[in-house]
């Protein structure tokens, strides 16, 4: 993207002023070199989002923004139902509530060196990953509806994890307002035996070591110390979320004109918040959020079991669980007035600042943990929400590195075997179903996550707390 097309407000903030059908400006948070690397489609998609009915303040792009579907990935937009606002299936995406959870282990890097290979093999054996893998549960129709209403709380009730896990999960592990009857039978069928599976693509489970602390106060509150071993799990709502996205994208695209909404791009498929279709989508999407929370909760349990067999002294405690593909009803201050808004975060992480009522008491002083997954073989980061997160972007920050190279290009340029060997030479063990999938997710296929999190900090979206270095990566 040519920065000359944008108004520069600071080295890390760029605006597209309203023109044509835009109802609000678009705001991009990124330094000039990241702007230069962004596809022109990000500009086009942000402008399109800014045209949607009922949008409030601005359409935002996070530093890791890239070309998505309708909304850019790394896009944030809030809508007011009272102002004719919409909810967009395209603004949430196919992988509803895809997210990251990180667990501390009570172990230090030196504690796992001798058993690293066995730990990698055990995690790979215990945690179903890849296309066609099935989970430890097969849900009856009744169980399915209970899971869709209960989320991680349901999973803990079934013996997968601890009550304490729920307090360290957004929405306390259960998204309210889920309507299982709004989820199609096809979506439920697709999920029947996928609970507790990792999936594929950029989803993974990593064992990591803390290799840098940036903010001692927040690191202490989060229980992170130099050389600590942690586990991060990145996955979402599996087939159920994908099918909800598929079902509602089509219906919303076909009916938008009936609501008087002219879609500049069919992928922006949306419906008024106060319509039956809009409410059905919200009910189904919230059920999808619960599915993702339950899924990560079951994988947490499997991870604990795997650690218990190899490292019985380990105690895996939840640091936090964040979702980065959601639409959530939240209260935000707009020009000094609190308003109930439906905030779409598509490839963006909620980043509540210190003192927010939703935060566990122990995080009240330092802000919400914002978990940023790197690409395979690169660093991940733990950030914290800042007081400025709220006015800057409805309390939102980046979610990952963002792709720099298409999958198509990655598989042509990189060999999966070579990537695995290179990472092994650096002491990083990869366990995967298919070598080609590794090539597609190779470190070189992504932007430098460090540049992205530095940009988030400079823009006042979230501050750096700790850097995590990969030791073991299990992927589908």
């Amino acid at each position, binding site marked *: 993207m040519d920065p000359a097309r944008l108004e520069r407000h600071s080295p890390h903030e760029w605006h597209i002023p309203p023109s044509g059908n835009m109802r609000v400006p678009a705001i991009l948070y990124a330094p000039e070199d990241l702007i230069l690397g962004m596809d022109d489609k990000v500009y086009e998609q942000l402008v399109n989002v800014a045209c949607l009915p009922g949008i409030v303040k601005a359409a935002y792009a996070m530093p890791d923004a890239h*070309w998505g579907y309708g909304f850019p990935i790394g896009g944030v937009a809030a809508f007011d139902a009272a102002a004719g606002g919409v909810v967009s299936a395209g603004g949430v995406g196919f992988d509803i509530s895809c997210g990251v959870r990180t667990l501390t282990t009570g172990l230090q890097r030196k504690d796992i060196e001798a058993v690293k290979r066995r730990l990698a093999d055990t995690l790979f054996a215990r945690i179903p990953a890849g296309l066609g*893998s099935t989970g430890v549960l097969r849900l009856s129709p009744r169980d399915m509806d209970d899971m869709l209403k209960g989320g991680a709380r349901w999973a803990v009730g079934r013996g997968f994890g601890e009550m304490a896990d729920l307090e360290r999960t957004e929405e306390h592990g259960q998204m309210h307002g889920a309507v299982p009857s709004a989820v199609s039978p096809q979506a439920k069928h697709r999920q029947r035996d996928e609970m507790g599976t990792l999936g594929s*693509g950029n989803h993974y489970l990593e064992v990591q070591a803390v290799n840098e602390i940036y903010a001692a106060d927040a690191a202490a509150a989060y229980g992170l110390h130099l050389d600590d071993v942690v586990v991060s799990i990145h996955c979402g709502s599996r087939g159920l979320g994908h099918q909800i996205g598929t079902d509602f994208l*089509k219906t919303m695209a076909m009916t938008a004109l009936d609501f008087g909404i002219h879609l500049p791009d069919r992928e922006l498929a949306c419906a008024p918040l106060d319509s039956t279709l809009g409410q059905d989508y919200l009910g189904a999407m919230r059920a999808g959020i619960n599915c993702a929370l339950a899924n990560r909760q079951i994988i947490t349990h499997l991870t604990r079991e795997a650690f218990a067999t190899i490292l019985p002294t380990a105690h895996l405690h939840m640091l936090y669980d964040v979702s980065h593909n959601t639409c959530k009803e939240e209260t935000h201050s707009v020009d000094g007035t609190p308003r109930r808004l439906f905030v779409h975060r598509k490839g963006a992480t909620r980043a509540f600042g210190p003192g927010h009522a939703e935060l566990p008491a122990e995080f009240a002083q330092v802000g919400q943990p914002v978990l940023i997954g790197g690409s395979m073989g690169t660093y991940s980061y733990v950030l914290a929400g800042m007081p400025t997160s709220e006015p800057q972007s409805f309390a939102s920050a980046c979610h990952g590195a963002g792709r720099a190279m298409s999958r*198509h290009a990655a598989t042509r340029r990189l060999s999966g075997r070579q990537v695995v060997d290179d990472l092994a030479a650096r002491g990083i063990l990869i366990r995967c*179903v298919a070598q080609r*999938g590794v090539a597609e997710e190779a470190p070189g296929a992504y932007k430098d996550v460090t540049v992205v999190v530095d940009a988030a900090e400079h823009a006042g979206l979230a501050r750096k707390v700790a850097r995590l270095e990969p030791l073991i990566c299990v992927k589908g």
Partner: protein
Amino acid sequence: MTIPTFVATPGNSPATHPGMQPQMPAWEHFAHQADIGVRGYGHSPEEAFAQAALAMIAVIADPRRIQAHETINIECRAPDLELLLVDWLNALIYEIATRHLLFCAFDVHINGHHLHATAWGENIDPARHQPAVEVKGATFTELHVDAIAPDRWRAQCVVDV
């Protein structure tokens, strides 16, 4: 019904060179920053749809490694050819996810807004098929179904992986 012989043979390897005129029917992938585009060519929309499906399978695994042991029938309906392509690919994604099948050959018939098709394939064998990714859904991004020349149809969209 016999299995169409033009698909999943070495003669139908993807036309990946930008200037290459594909021998029809044929398929290829095209770049999207986060995901991947699938494109099929054919003498008719039906052939182009079958080839786009093969292109989507090739995102997951090499179609030449997939054998035609199982047969399933698929029906879908949509108000235009482009939405029908998305529905067709999504119907296959659903069958892959719920039956744990991969497909290697397709016979597609389109009558107005209605598609009915036969797909041939086999159960996913991770060791042999080496599935690289799972396709989450077909999208409206870069969605086109059109006659790009007399007797030459193109069907394409980006799939989310």
